[in-house]
């Protein structure tokens, strides 16, 4: 692996000497990509992107099956308001993540869960509300390329991560780009992701020592952006949807895997699997 300059925090695990070998299963018949991915389409897998929205008209996104917007509303029950119906992407970030997922698993059902609104305060409350909506609406995999550093939200997200796990919902969470507390990406119950080297989305790495458990490309890569455009961007945010895409292939081929089973299959087809 090459050494990259100016890495986001946690990405160093996947550079230099790399994370070593992924955990080995020692099976008589190793798990292969052909078995793990099936046709590789991710057909029918409900994948939510909790983010700034998804531009359904972007040519790299294709289509969006559902739109849900979660906003802070102190007068509403639970302090949040949930609205369905088409919405824009406020920043371009959610569209970037959705397009990466679509490029790897072209037949997933994308769901835009917009948790950012026209206020800059209280977004962690909307984030938690969006995650709860996913748990209650049969989402199979959720892409969380955002996080919170608010320690007051730690218990809320612990409970949500546990609920998701026992519902067999996979949560894929980007590590923060700075070395600071990030919730829920440092929790063992999520697939936590940081940037690996290169720009090949077919390659990803397993780091069994964590807390950045998975590495995938996210440094200076071309991503979809607002207005049907693309741009070049860096961040652990863009590595997480790569892992989502691979998990969508696995869940499309093997519906109903638990998060722990999916984690085992994913490690078996990682670039550093023995």
């Amino acid at each position, binding site marked *: 692996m090459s050494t990259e*300059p*100016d890495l*986001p925090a946690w990405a160093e695990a996947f550079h230099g000497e790399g994370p070593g070998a992924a955990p080995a299963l020692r099976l008589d018949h190793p798990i292969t990509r052909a078995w793990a991915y099936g046709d590789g389409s991710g057909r029918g897998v409900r994948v939510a992107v909790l983010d*700034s929205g998804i531009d359904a008209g972007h040519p790299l996104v294709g289509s969006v099956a559902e739109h849900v917007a979660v906003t802070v509303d102190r007068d509403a029950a639970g302090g949040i308001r949930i609205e369905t119906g088409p919405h824009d992407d*406020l*920043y*371009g*970030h959610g569209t970037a993540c959705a397009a990466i997922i679509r490029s790897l698993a072209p037949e997933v059902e994308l769901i835009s869960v917009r948790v*950012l*609104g*026209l*206020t*800059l*305060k209280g*977004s*962690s409350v909307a984030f938690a509300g969006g995650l709860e909506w996913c748990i209650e609406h049969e989402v199979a995999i959720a892409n969380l*390329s*955002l*996080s*919170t*550093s*608010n*320690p*007051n*939200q730690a218990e809320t997200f612990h409970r949500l991560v546990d609920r998701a796990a026992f519902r067999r919902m996979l949560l894929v969470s*980007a590590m*923060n*780009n*700075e*070395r*600071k*507390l990030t919730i829920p990406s440092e929790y063992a119950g999520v697939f936590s992701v940081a940037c690996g080297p290169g720009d090949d989305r077919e390659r990803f790495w397993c780091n069994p020592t964590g807390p950045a458990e998975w590495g995938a490309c996210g440094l*200076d890569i071309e991503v979809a*952006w*607002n*207005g049907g*455009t*693309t*741009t*070049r*961007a*860096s*961040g652990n*945010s863009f590595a997480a949807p790569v892992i989502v895409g691979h998990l969508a292939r696995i869940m499309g081929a093997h519906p109903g895997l638990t998060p722990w089973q999916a984690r085992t299959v994913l490690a078996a087809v990682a670039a550093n699997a023995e």
Partner: protein
Amino acid sequence: MSALTSACALARACYGAAAVSVAVVEEDALHYVAADGAGADSIVGTRLAAGRGIAGFAAATGQSLTVRDPSSDPRFARDVGASTGYLPSTIQCVPVDVHGEVVAVISILDRATSDERADSPVALERLVELVGALLASGDGGDGVAARLDRLEPDDRAAAVTAIGAILDALDR
């Protein structure tokens, strides 16, 4: 020069950047309170509505983001680039947390690559800590007086009366 502006100048030199700015997070906008480098005079005082720009994303999510050619986003160009007269090739926006709440965003425009830099820069985390400490200490250029100035006259008078009552109570 405020302490925050000095921090911007130091960071700009350290990172070999074209410009560095600090915007404090308000309920529905980012308010640029300090900057150094290209477009600094124009950006300070600007308010960027929530739901706009890469800095807005960092403020809303607490997640930093680096984007090359941000002017490809038409909303970025209109809201920020056009107002300062400087369109960067690369922008890095880093949130500043105080007690788990994002209170500001540092924007670094056209940061030099590691090949172009002579020395290893101070870790970005140290800059974030410095700006966070300055804002928490009230030396961020957006103190009580500046906030009072933004109120409507009636509200400002009521706020001044309330603050005076609090200070009187503390003196007793």
